[in-house]
């Protein structure tokens, strides 16, 4: 039991470090946070912490989705560090 708690705590701490978090991890943690908030009898203070964490994760996930910049390119030449890219355009893709 104590061990599980310790594990949860670790997971919660990890959730706060968003810089290294992957999108799918963020999404999973958001689901877990929500689950905990909805189904567990948490002390008020911990609930507030979970809520804030949830909002953080939500913002993180949204940002990840929106941060990708639409860019279709094609490798024109080179390999390794000397690789050269140029925009790719096709009429067929409306």
């Amino acid at each position, binding site marked *: 039991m104590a061990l599980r708690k310790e594990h949860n705590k670790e997971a919660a701490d990890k959730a706060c470090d968003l810089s290294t978090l992957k*999108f*799918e991890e963020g*999404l999973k943690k958001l689901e877990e946070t929500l689950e905990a908030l909805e189904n567990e009898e948490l002390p008020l203070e911990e*609930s507030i912490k979970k809520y804030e964490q949830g909002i953080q994760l*939500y913002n993180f996930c949204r940002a990840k989705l929106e941060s990708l910049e639409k860019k279709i390119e094609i490798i024109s030449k*080179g390999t390794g560090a000397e690789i050269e890219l140029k925009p790719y355009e096709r009429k067929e893709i409306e």
Partner: protein
Amino acid sequence: MIEYLKNDSVYTVTEINQYVSDMFANDAELTSVLVRGEISNFTNHLASGHFYFSLKDAGSRINCVMFKNSNRLLKFMPQNGQSVVIKGYVGTYIQRGEYQLYASSIEKEGTGELYKKFLELKEKFEKAGYFDEARKRPIPVLPRRIGVVTAPEGSVICDILNILKRRFFNMPLVIAPAYVQGGLAAASICEAIARLNSLEDVDVIIVARGGGSIEELWPFNEESVAMAVLESKKPVISAVGHQTDFTICDFVSDMRAPTPSAAAELVVFSKDETLEDLERMLSRLDMAASSMFAAASSKLDYLGQKLASHSPEKVFENYRMHIDNIEMTMRSVMSRKMSEASARVSEVSPKAHIARLRGLTARYSERIANIKKHIDARINSKCESAANVLENTWLKFSVHDYKKVLELGYSLVMGAADGKLIRTAAQAAENEKVNIKFSDGEIAAVICR
């Protein structure tokens, strides 16, 4: 035979068929051919054990025969509709004046030499563990950029881009152009995979090609391509050919997609759906939080009220209320008593009251008068008896008056110092000064013994 023809220009049927038969037999091209087509009218002649059938394609057909000594080597029973490649020679059946294909072997389409090579490589790689599920890397849920190895001019890339546009319009993509068929293909596919591996933010690679024959798809069965896929640092999705086409590339990849479009569907989730999911989760978060706060604040209110009820003001207020209560009770009791009393008072009329008082007064006056009379009588009788007693007493007393005694000649001796009566001789001391009282006066004397 030529001389014979020269002599007579009319041929027998047999002669002409024989002639044609010889022509066929002398044609090097026809003595060993590979013919692709579809089997129809297949008959397994039970008596002879020979196979008779036709081979056809969209525009033509040819009769075929496969003799017993050839067909017993076949590992499958040919069926109508089957696409096959037949090895054999074209010859004539003189009796009927027909030429036909004499099959020495039949291979199912796709099960030719290349297919054998494919099976060999597949077996080799399978033994090497290259197809193990454990080797397969997870495909990232949200890649930073997708790399695609394909022909830049083909329809495959259009299919992929259209699906990306629909599912995740802002997903960045980079194309590594490659030949996807022919002799240069394998090397260019390998190079394309290597190039995409050198782009840091490419998180997944799709190797894609549209459908084609086994020969056309062959580069994806080359060992070099398989090794490039195995050695790729980034996970590879293989999307080569149609649903029914399998290549070595498919088996060694981290994920096989049945078609290039399917690969695009697999590599990105629907952004809109995910955004909806996120919004749902946000509102659930808000709901959970607000219900939690509501519960907490109602509990707090309750406790606050409870606390307030114990504040000094409230306690004081309670006491005041208690006192007020007592006062009110007292007031109501008093007013009840008063009203009861006044009800009693009003029962008695003043006149009757006065009359009663008068009656009482008269009665008491009479009693007082009687008592007075009685007392007077008692006092009078007491006074009379007292007077008698006094007279008698006085008479008795006067008999005993010492002066009378002195008149009889007696005297009294008293100490001069203390005036005390000396009643006996013993009381008198030697030389004591005494006074002797007589009826007519006193004289001083001294005791002399």
